[in-house]
């Protein structure tokens, strides 16, 4: 067991650090990390920053060199994310492209699709959003009803997606749609790439309890996309959509770790200022938050080692999302506790401070990207081998 980095990895870290020092200047220093994955404050500045990252070759680090990536190892990706978080660099805007759609196309796309779509992600000139959930298809993604019908050399799409982060900023959407209503549920689905800037697409913001409209509804009314804009085979989209979800379990988690460490440090400082650290119960809760955050890092490092050495992961990987979302939700509650009566007072226009924002937005964290109940089902069935519930009907 060894928790040190190799000389090459340290050299890579120096390279990242140097580049950030040189480029994280001016207005870029005023933005800071995102308050959540749907936080779209200072969007234009962040897009400009993303362009800088693209020019510097920092997007698609783990992608193969043949498709324009850097072929970095898992550890190097983690190092980049760690240094990025330490530098307090702007919240990324390319997650859906770089983290989800890009790797999906790298793995399952045609050469033409790689040529057409990957450069835009790598240079941050084209942005994506994810069209999965619908009003009747949340945890049950297989229940999607948005319909796509082939009309000559175009797909015609009708239906609705919901909870679509950044749809109001994105250029394209990758959407899971039904292309064969007669086939069994999971077998009539296709993975389509659809441009958003067209008459048939309407994006409407949804105001969340945080007071902002970071999630959207996307309505398709005879929207169109080219026949070739399907990833994988027609009616084989379920496999592709699951591949995308697999990439969600990426290497961003260790930089999330650093953001959490900063947040916990801020909480401890606030608690000390308020005299809350004299209270033995508060001390217990702060210590517990600290312990579980450290263990989050240890779990991540164990998973990383398995990924780097074997390319596969063990049971410690399946608990990640359940673990961090439960932890952060509990931290939000502790933040409100420490603030006490002052926790109720907000700024003009429902202006929330960092703790208040974390408290409210963390309530969604146990729901999106696989609700906690679904995570427990997956752990129980796929990791522990417990039997599935009998199917309906």
């Amino acid at each position: 067991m060894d928790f040190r980095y190799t000389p090459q990895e340290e050299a890579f870290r120096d390279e990242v650090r140097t580049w950030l020092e040189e480029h994280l200047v001016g207005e870029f220093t005023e933005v800071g990390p995102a308050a959540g994955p749907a936080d779209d404050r200072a969007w234009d500045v962040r897009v400009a920053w993303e362009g800088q990252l693209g020019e510097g070759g920092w997007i698609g680090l783990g992608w193969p060199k043949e498709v324009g990536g850097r072929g970095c190892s898992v550890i190097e990706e983690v190092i980049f994310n760690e240094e990025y978080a330490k530098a307090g660099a702007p919240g990324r805007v390319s997650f859906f492209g770089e983290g989800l759609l890009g790797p999906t196309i790298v793995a399952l796309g045609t050469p033409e699709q790689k040529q057409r779509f990957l450069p835009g992600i790598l240079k941050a000139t084209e942005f994506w959003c994810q069209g999965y959930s619908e009003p009747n298809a949340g945890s049950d993604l297989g229940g999607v009803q948005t319909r796509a019908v082939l009309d000559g050399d175009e797909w015609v799409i009708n239906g609705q997606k919901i909870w679509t982060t950044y749809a109001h900023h994105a250029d394209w959407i990758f959407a899971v749609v039904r292309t064969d209503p007669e086939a069994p549920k999971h077998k009539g689905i296709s993975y389509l790439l659809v441009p958003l800037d067209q008459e048939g697409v309407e994006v409407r913001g949804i105001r969340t309890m945080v007071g902002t409209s970071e999630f959207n509804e996307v309505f398709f009314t005879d929207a169109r996309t080219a026949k070739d804009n399907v990833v994988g085979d027609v009616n084989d989209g379920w496999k592709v959509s699951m591949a995308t979800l697999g990439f969600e379990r990426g290497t961003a988690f260790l930089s999330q770790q650093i953001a959490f460490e900063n947040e916990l440090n801020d909480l401890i400082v606030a608690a000390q200022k308020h005299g809350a650290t004299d209270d033995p119960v508060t001390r217990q809760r702060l210590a517990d938050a600290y312990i579980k955050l450290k263990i989050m890092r240890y779990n991540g490092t164990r998973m990383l080692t398995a990924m780097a050495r074997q390319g596969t992961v063990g049971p410690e990987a399946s608990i990640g999302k359940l673990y961090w979302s439960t932890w952060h939700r509990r931290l939000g509650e502790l933040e409100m506790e420490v603030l006490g009566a002052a926790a109720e007072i907000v700024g003009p226009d429902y202006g929330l401070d960092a703790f208040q924002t974390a408290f409210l937005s963390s309530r969604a964290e146990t729901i999106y990207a696989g609700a906690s109940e679904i995570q427990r089902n997956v752990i129980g069935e796929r990791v522990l081998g417990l039997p599935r519930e009998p199917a309906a009907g």
Partner: protein
Amino acid sequence: MNFAFSEEQEALRETVAQFLGGKSPSSEVRRLMETTEGYDESVWKQMGEQMGLQGLHIPEEYGGQGYTFVELGIVLEEMGKVLLCAPYFATVCLAANAILNVGSDAQKKDLLPGIASGETIATLAFTEPSGKWGADGIGMTYESSGDGFTLSGEKMFVLDGHNADLIVVVARKSGTSGTEGLSFFTVRGDADGLTRTALETMDMTRKQAKLEFSGVKADLLGEEGSGWDALSKTLDQAAVCLSSEMVGGAQQVLDMSVDYAKVRVQFGRPIGSFQAIKHKCADMLLEVESAKSAAYYAAWAAAEDNEELPVVASLAKAYCSDAYFHCAAENIQIHGGIGFTWEHDAHLYFKRAKSSETYLGDATYHRELLAQRIGI
């Protein structure tokens, strides 16, 4: 960046697991727990002679195998899995570490080879009837005269105190309090003036004793007054060791729960197909894997003997204590009525989980200690 065991370490685990599987089936646990000594002499001997387990992390120059806390953690995990009834924790994780931390080179050469070979069963006597785990729990004073040192007073909750050939005792100089004035001594188990009483315990797989000292002649171990730093370090190391042992037990009760949930049929299907049971098991897996991460990292920190050790020892003890107890409790719940019987093994793990949670300070105690150690 490599948070995994090496091939040799995995091989060690397999060998020890096989050995223990043969020597410590449930029937043996039940047989030995009913005895006063609570262990099997011939198995203890084999542990030393065949496997070199008692000397695993003792340096070679003192008769040991020269491995580290990481290998020791692996062995303890496997012992915890089978509820091994033996004075191993007391001898190796308490006494041997105390001697290594405080003894002079000559004293280490004198005392450790016997421990490493399995010839000498040993323990650390520091707690007293107050049951406090820190320096303020030590009230026993020592007398020094021209002839040497004598000890008078009572030590309680001494693991394998009635079995030990060698007892390491912590006492304070008269007139001192807190972390000041503490010293270590050694006393033979059959010393004059020492009365040892084996205690009945709720967890019958871990034996405890009361030791009454009446002017017992004692040898100073290490320097006079060397006490608190060395004791604190010894207790941190012991907490790390206990965390490893708890992880083994936690994995075992998770396995028991999952196995049962797959075969027990009610309402026409295995109970594991119901979400209430399934989600309980999922939560247990999260705790077991997290407990492993904590215990393995702590073992590494102990092996490195770095400045992280005190914080990480409390971190591991707190988390693993809660995790093991919670999983052992859920194991009973998942088994329903039969989980409550003496005949089923669930209560053995439940009781070991509780005694391990308590020993060296529970999660509440260690969270407060951690809060102090990180400067909250």
